[in-house]
Every structure is written in C-alpha cells, then in structure tokens.
C-alpha cells in the first residue's frame, strides 16, 4: 500500500478527539482508577543501598501482622529460561527482567525491589514493609559511566563479558557490549580536512517524567486464569512479559488496557504486574498496586547518562569529510542502553563519507535504563550538533547553511547503510531559515541556537477491525493504547476511506483477547503502522459493501464504485446505496459486515527536524530563560494537525527540561537525592514560551496518506539548540548537561577568569 496524492476530506482536519469528553470530565479510567470487591493493596520494599549482597530476609513479623494476606521475596518468583521479548523500541532479556522485578542475591540500585506484601489496607501494607528485616552486606558501587569502565571498577555482574570485541575478554566487566557503525577511510578523511574539532560531552540520567505513576490491579483465579488491568504502552507486551516471567500460557492471562497517563517509552515494560499476579495468586484475592512518585524515580527506567567524544573534520568550504564518535552509555543495573540508536543516528542528518562511530553499553548502579522518547538520539545529537555549531563559527558560515550543505537527501546513504528514499531534511532547514524567528533581533545577553535531529521511526505489527453497524456508523477496534490522540487520527483515516465524517467512527482500544497481537505504542509507530492496518481493514469493509450492493442490484461488483460513504453503480441506472442502506440489509445479503487487517508494517519514513531557540542568560545567577522556540519537522502528512503540533511542542518542552534542569543526583552512597518533582525540576508553564510548531510535509511513499512518525524526533535537537544559544549569548560553550544555574554561573566565572 503506497502513497497516492489525493484530495482529502477528513485527514488534515481538526475534529474533537473521540475520548475527549471523558478526559475533561474525569470519567476516563487510568491505571489507578480501578477497583474490585475484596481487593487487597500491594506494596514493595525497596533497597536503600546502591549495591549490596542480601545475606538474609526475615518476613516472619510482616506475615504475622493482622490484615497481611501475602508476603513474597525473590525466592517466590520463578526464574524464567533465558530469551528475549521484543518491546517496540526495546528487546527485553527475561532473566534480567526477573532479577529487576525482585532482587535475588544482590541489589543493584537504590530502589531495587526486595520484597512485596499484600494487605487489606494501604496502611497495613505499609506497616508490614517496616517489619521486614533485610540483612545487607554493602558493596562498593559505581554510577559514572567512565568510572564503571575502568578495570578495577566495582563489578555488578560477575558473569558479564563484553560482547563484540576482539579478542574475547577473559575477565568479566561492566561493559556489556560494543556497537560499531562506520564506512570509508578515517585516516584519509581526517587528513583531507582543513579543520578538525574534537570535544568531550557528558549527560546525566533523566526520567521520562510521565505524570501518572505505574499502577495495576491483578486478579488470579483458582483455575489459573488471570486478569490484569493496567496502564501501559502495550497490553500485549504486558501480557507476554508476565506470562514469560511466571511460566503461564498466553491464554491464561487477559490484560485490559486502562487509559495511560503518559509513557514516553517508560511504560514498555513491567514493574508491578508480575508481583501483583503472584501476590494475588498467593492471597486468593485481587491485588492493587500503585507506585508513589518517589518509587517511580527510584525504580523505573530513566534514560542513560553518558560520556561522548565527538570529532569532526571539514574542508574550508564547509564540506564535512569525516566524523568519529565514541559513545559510552549507562545501561543501569542490567545491560541494554539505547546506545545503538545513538550510534546510528547521531550523525544521521548529514551525509558524511568517512564515519567511525563506536558505542559502549555499560552497567552501573542505577535502575535499569528504559526507553525514553527517541532513545539515545538526543544524547548523540547533543554532542554532534554542538561540534557542528563550533564548525560553523570556525568557518564563519551560517549554521543552517552549513547543515544544508551537508544534509542527507533522497538517494544519500544513512550512516547505518541503506539508501534514503524521500525525506525532508533540506525542507526543514530552509523553512527554519525563512522563518521570521530566524531574523528577529536579539538583545544583550541573548543568543540564538540551531540544531537538527533525526529519528528513524518504526513500523511493526498492528491489527484493526472495522465493524459496520446497521445504522451506517462504524466501530473501529484496535490494540494500541492511545497516549496522545491516536484514536482520533485512526478514526479519521477510517472515515477518509469510507467517505464519512470522523464522528461517525467510534474507535476503541481493546484487551488482549479481542484483537490480534499489536506491538506497543512507541517509536512513533501508531499513526503510521496501525494507520496502515486501519486503512486496509476499512478497504476490506468497503470491498464487502461493494459486493453486497452488487448483489442487491444483481450486477458485477466491478460495476460498483465507492465514493462519499456510498456504493454507486457505474453504468446502468446510476443507482446508489449508503452504508446504512447496505448494512441494514446485511442479514439478508450474507451476514454482518466486518473488515479486518493484521500486518507487519514496513517502510516507516525517517523524520528530520530542525529547532531554533532564543535564550537569555542572567550573568548574576546563571539562569537561562527560553525566550522563543520554534520547531520545524517533516511529519510526512499531519493526520490531525493539532496533535502533530502537540507532539512537537511536548517533545521540545521535554528537551528543554533535560537541557536546563533535569538530572539524577546521587549522594556518596549512591542514593538518589532528588526522587520527587520538587527537586527533579521539570518545566512548568511559567518556564516556557509558546512553542511554534511548523510541520512540513514530504509524503512517506510507504503510507497511503504519506504519514511518517512524529512523536520521537522533537526531543532530539533541544539539548544542542540550547547549548548553541547559550554560546551565542555568552561566548561560553556548555558541554556537560544540565545547564542549571550553578553550572552556567561556574562556566561564566571560569571564562571571566580565563580572560583574566
């Protein structure tokens, strides 16, 4: 199914989303809003140490507390056979996951679960946790990624040997694997260069920061059949992970998706659900578990802090001839950082003939790193887009022109190999350059920064069912949780194919027993991949309706054409039948009408984006204020432009938070000091200006309406855009995130001193 230009009536408009009224009135049910009769409350005891051996756990006092119905520790959780479960942007190793859910012999981070209880009230459950005695032998810990790579660093896993290095290591280390992407001849590339710039950058772990903490209810029946209600980015993933963890069969577990209060990648794994199932099984009653905000910060996936060396070589005329990068990423307690994506995409907006990019995946004593919006890409772009900016200044050329000169375009090769189809890099750059923002005047201590970003977008498995109701309205059944308006965009695509209004289509996200497997909502795939499935399912329903009309008229289906919500006879009497007229007779013409599709979508088109931002730096306090912000992104086709803009604005805001304030701060013992919104400072309304979102449209040839993904790319450029703006304002280059007031102040003072 490929792109065809056509006049669209629904796609590209801005109807009110179908789940809107429920969400502005408080009716919508999120993860923590569900309860069952006889329900117990589950709570988790977490390690206060960054790294320790568990000598013994005594749960007897907790068990004896009246009202406590079940207590579990690592020993009560089965250890699955190895293997890997795919999770959208992630591949999850089931044994690591099992150890992350509940520590066995060692705790690997502050917040690592060691035991869980279920009791008749929340307060009794909490009291029971206090009665569990854990005897720890505290071990030395390591959090900094470069420290963790040293040969004498404290070792998290004594069975971890670096993969993909020659010769094979003889000793275990914290380095899980090496990843390499490259081409050309580095020596030749750099020897041709007139200018070479090489710099070092660091970032800290940052959290996805979804406002809804993880929550679930599990109900395990005596016959082994279980149900879980939870908010996640994919009910099928939750089901598969739980059954893998607990040795169940897929048909034993039904997962019912709640509304989800934000995920950004962080809700593509399990933390509570398997524990709730085991507690429910033991207690014989439903169990509800919710995380506190502190638990969310201490135990759920942040994204990696990292250390990056970036080297770039260019000719005097601005042609980039070589780039070399070395990216060291924290994986957290178990292997699996997003360094692979950083390696592939850090330089991806540019066509560079000689490339050598190496990534290292390194275990450290923080929670297991989990996907966060365009995982890995913002870190890589921070470093590379900063050196590009330095290069532009060195050459004294406009930073947008320099980017355009080296931009990827249709026919150029991606750093990871393949030849690109149509993509919108140059379009974004020229839209940015022509935007009034780029020409606006700046005052003293103000500066402007530009940066670009790339995200590949993913396809994957999606299914959809289109049920034609007897009155001509439609039930659209799909299996991807709606985090930011995908019900609306999917219903719009369905309505477009049928030729009816979006409001006549009622979309539902259903449980794991009501539709075929769907990959998670993530990687910017739903509007693309599920959209494709919806279009195919709708076309299937249209085909059936044309056949029914043909039967009713006693003519060949080929003589029936579909337009504007009705079947039309092409020749003869020129008769027509609406959906309602066909559907109301369905019983007589062969039964109810239902279209289906289940696909593995390929060809999600990459997104390119360019951001620019103006900052003002307060030289007294080091505070950086964002004065103006513009994002330009190639969305392929904006199905519902408001929600496309919303993705761009929201991603930019997250990037701004990452740039200016967000970071995990640990004490000497490796304990997280800022496990709350007061001290982990995410942007609030008064921190930000309006964010201008310009969406360009270079259609993706592999989607019927030209859709690319949109959700990930907007978080890629802000880190560098802001760093470049700070330089423009002050002449000081910030290479260590975040650019919080004390750090900016220190850098300004240092620069003053250097000037003497």
């Amino acid at each position, binding site marked *: 199914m490929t792109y065809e230009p056509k006049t669209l009536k629904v796609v590209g408009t801005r109807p009110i989303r179908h789940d809107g009224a429920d969400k502005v009135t408080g009716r919508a049910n999120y993860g923590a809003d569900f309860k069952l009769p006889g329900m117990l409350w589950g709570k988790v005891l977490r390690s206060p140490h960054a790294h320790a051996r568990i000598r013994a756990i005594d749960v007897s006092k907790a068990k004896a507390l009246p009202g406590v119905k079940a207590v579990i520790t690592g020993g009560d959780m089965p250890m699955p056979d190895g293997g*890997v479960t*795919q999770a*959208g*942007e*992630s*591949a*999850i190793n089931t044994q690591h996951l099992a150890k992350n859910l509940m520590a066995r012999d060692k705790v690997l981070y502050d917040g690592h679960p060691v035991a869980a209880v279920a009791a008749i009230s929340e307060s009794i459950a909490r009291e029971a946790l206090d009665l569990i005695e854990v005897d720890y032998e505290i071990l030395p810990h390591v959090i900094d990624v470069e420290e963790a790579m040293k040969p004498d660093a404290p070792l998290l896993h004594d069975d971890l040997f670096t993969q*993909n290095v020659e010769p094979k290591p003889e000793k275990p280390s914290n380095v899980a694997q090496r*990843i*390499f*992407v*490259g*081409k050309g001849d580095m020596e030749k590339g750099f020897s041709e260069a007139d200018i070479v710039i090489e710099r070092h950058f660091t970032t800290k772990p940052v959290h996805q920061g979804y406002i809804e903490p993880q929550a679930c209810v599990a109900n395990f029946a005596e016959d082994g059949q279980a149900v879980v209600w939870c908010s996640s980015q994919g009910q099928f993933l939750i089901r598969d992970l739980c059954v893998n963890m607990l040795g169940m069969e897929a048909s034993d577990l039904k997962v019912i998706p709640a509304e989800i209060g934000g995920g950004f*990648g962080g809700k593509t794994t399990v933390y509570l659900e398997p524990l709730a199932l085991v507690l429910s099984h033991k207690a014989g009653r439903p169990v509800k578990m919710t995380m506190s905000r502190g638990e969310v910060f201490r135990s759920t*996936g942040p*994204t990696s802090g990292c250390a990056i060396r970036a080297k770039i070589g260019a000719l005097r005329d601005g042609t980039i001839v070589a780039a070399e990068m070395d990216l060291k990423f924290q994986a957290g307690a178990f*292997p*699996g*950082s*997003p*360094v*692979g*994506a*950083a390696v*592939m995409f850090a330089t991806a907006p540019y066509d560079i003939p000689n490339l050598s990019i190496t990534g290292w*995946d390194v275990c450290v004593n923080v929670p297991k*790193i*989990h*996907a*966060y919006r*365009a*995982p*890995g*890409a913002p870190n890589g772009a921070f470093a590379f887009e900063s050196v590009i900016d330095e290069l532009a200044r060195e050459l004294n050329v406009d930073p947008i022109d320099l980017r355009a000169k080296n931009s990827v375009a249709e026919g150029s090769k991606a750093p*990871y*190999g*393949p*030849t*690109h*189809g149509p993509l919108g890099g140059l379009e974004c750059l020229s839209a940015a350059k022509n935007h009034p923002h780029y020409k606006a005047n700046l005052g003293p201590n103000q500066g402007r920064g530009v940066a670009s970003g790339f995200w*590949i977008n*993913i*396809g*994957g498995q999606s299914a959809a069912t289109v049920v034609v109701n007897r009155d001509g309205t439609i039930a659209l059944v799909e299996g991807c949780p709606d985090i930011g308006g995908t019900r609306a965009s999917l219903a719009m695509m369905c309505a477009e194919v049928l030729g009816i209004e979006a409001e006549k289509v009622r979309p539902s996200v259903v449980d794991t027993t009501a539709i075929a497997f769907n990959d998670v909502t993530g*990687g910017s795939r739903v509007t693309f991949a599920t959209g494709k499935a919806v279009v195919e399912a709708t076309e299937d329903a249209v085909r059936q309706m044309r056949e029914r009309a043909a039967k009713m008229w006693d003519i060949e289906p080929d003589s029936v054409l579909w337009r504007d919500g009705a079947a039309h006879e092409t020749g003869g009497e020129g008769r027509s039948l609406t959906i309602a007229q066909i559907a109301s007779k369905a019983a007589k013409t062969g039964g109810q009408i239902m279209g289906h599709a289940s696909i*593995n979508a*390929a*060809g*999600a088109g990459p997104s390119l984006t360019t951001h620019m931002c103006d900052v003002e730096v307060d030289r007294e306090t080091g505070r950086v204020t964002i004065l103006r912000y513009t994002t330009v992104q190639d969305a392929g086709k904006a199905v519902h432009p408001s929600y496309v803009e919303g993705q761009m604005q929201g991603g930019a805001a997250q990037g701004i938070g990452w740039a200016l304030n967000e970071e995990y701060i640990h004490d000497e013992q490796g304990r997280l000091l800022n496990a709350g919104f007061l001290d982990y400072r995410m942007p609030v309304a008064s921190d930000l200006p309006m964010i201008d979102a310009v969406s360009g449209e270079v259609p993706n040839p*592999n989607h019927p309406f030209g859709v690319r993904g949109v959700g*990930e790319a907007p978080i890629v450029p802000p880190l560098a855009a802001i760093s470049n703006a700070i330089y423009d304002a002050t002449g000081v280059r910030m290479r260590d995130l975040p650019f919080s007031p004390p750090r900016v102040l220190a850098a300004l003072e240092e620069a003053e001193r250097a000037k003497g």
Partner: protein
Amino acid sequence: MARVVLSGDLGRRFAGGEVEVRVPGDSVRRLIRALDERYPGIAGHLEAEGMAVAIDGVVYQDALLEEVGPDSEVYFLHAIRGGRA
C-alpha cells in the same frame, strides 16, 4: 543477483571490513542462506531477534519472506528498534 552490503559490525565480524557482495535469492530467507554459505555462521546472526533488513531503503522488521529484486540493495541493521533500552 541482489547487492548485499555487510557494513558496520557485521562487515567487521564476518568479512574483516565493509564488503558488498552479489548473492542469488529472491527473498530475504534465500539471501540469508546464500550468505551463510559464504560466511558460515552469519545466518544465526541475521535471523536473531531484533535484526531488521533494509531493501532498497525500506526498513522491514522481522522480514523473512520479503521479496528481493534482482538489483535490490540490501542492508542488515542491528538494534533497529532504537536500542535495547
């Protein structure tokens, strides 16, 4: 015969650097078989979970029966899903 490029880690590991080879086969599965004859052991690697294949620039996840044209350009990519976060 399709043009298969083994780049990055794959090239280093199996061919001592990036190579471009012509291999017979009209589907991804057949290509992988043909490649395995030339580079023993590569099939297990290419069929592993999480590998993706790009045929003429279009990225497929879990492709096996996907058609490959006589002049197609084929790359195998690892960790396409955006890293193993």
